[in-house]
């Protein structure tokens, strides 16, 4: 089936199998591999994107369900060569180790800071509770979100 989605401000079309996830369509059909494919069951958050401005796991959305809707992925955050402030904060705070979870965490952090400009540590932890990182122990990640909030 033909799916039409507005991705990062651009209207795109993809021919999808009916049972295919939005994540698969983004990565394999639309050339956007920033959203990572790991657990495929909504446990790890590495595929996090914004669907009509709402934070979701793209592995749990049917590509067909995104038809006619707006998707924002991690690829759309940077402004040309300039990183998004949340991405820059992740770099500056040393919040990236292997990097696999980073795109999902960045998208989740961007979503949090849009809704809550100065979150408490507890609010940061709850907002990122659906994103697994197996390297860092999360301390630097929480530092990065706090840093991004302070700079804003």
């Amino acid at each position, binding site marked *: 089936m033909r799916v039409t989605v507005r991705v990062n401000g651009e209207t795109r079309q993809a021919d999808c199998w*009916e049972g295919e996830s939005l994540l698969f369509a983004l990565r394999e059909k639309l050339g956007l591999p920033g959203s990572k494919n790991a657990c495929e069951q*909504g446990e790890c958050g590495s595929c996090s994107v914004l669907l009509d401005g709402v934070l*979701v796991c793209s*592995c749990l*959305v*049917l590509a067909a*369900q995104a038809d006619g809707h707006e998707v924002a992925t991690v690829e759309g955050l940077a402004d040309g060569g300039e990183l998004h402030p949340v991405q820059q904060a992740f770099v500056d705070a040393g919040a990236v180790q292997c990097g696999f979870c980073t795109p999902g965490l960045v998208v*989740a952090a961007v979503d949090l800071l849009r809704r809550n400009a100065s979150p408490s540590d507890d609010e940061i932890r709850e907002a990122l509770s659906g994103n697994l990182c197996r390297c860092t122990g999360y301390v630097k990640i929480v530092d990065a979100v706090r840093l991004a909030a302070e700079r804003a």
Partner: protein
Amino acid sequence: MDVLTPRTLDDALALKAEHRDAWPIQGGTDVLVALNFDRARPAVMLNLNEVAELRGYERADGELRLGAGLTYTELEHGPLRDELRALSEAARTVGSPQIRNRGTIGGNLGTASPAGDAIPPLVVEGAEVECASVRGTRRVPVAEFVTGVKRNALEPDELVTAVWVRPSNAAQTFMKVGPRNAMVIAVCSLALSAGDALRACFGSASPRPVLVTAPLDEAATFAERVAEAAAPIDDVRGSAGYRRHALRVLAERALKRVVL
């Protein structure tokens, strides 16, 4: 495989009558897992995301009609949190923000898992499921709607369209046992209220929801009665003995939270 995307409830019901084996999909948090892991290949999926009648909630004659597409996020943060306190608390324990943004109350009922977090609070509040088809609508109490482990009372041409609840305004709470505070399928859970009487219902401790009630002056023995009413099993998440013990502890704590 085919995905049908109706734009109105009438169209959705007509399609369900025509394709009785179609899988309804709303938030997808259960259906996509089955698809991604090749556990199911439904011939037809009925995507309900575009049916506006299933969203939000409305009031009618002292009752709340919660649309089947109401999300956990809406229950957690929305204006209903004070009226449906235990349900709102339960919603906050579901998955992660990403899951709560997509998962719906209708999906939780349709899946009818013993671990469905919305179910115990709805049973305690005496909620009813609105089941609709081209033949009409009927209401089924939540405890009767869940007929077994992942089985429900829907006829093949029916969809869950709403949940009706008359908020009791009783003091109430929801508690859940799991290895962490997020991304947890309940090892066991408990909703408890104290209004005109004590009412409790547990999750992950019986194949169907069980409502346990007692007069307010029997609070001293209520936790024991809750634990005795459970029919837990041993599985990967916990043993039957642990679950029964934990339910007793949860009931004692819940009583302290709502009564004392």
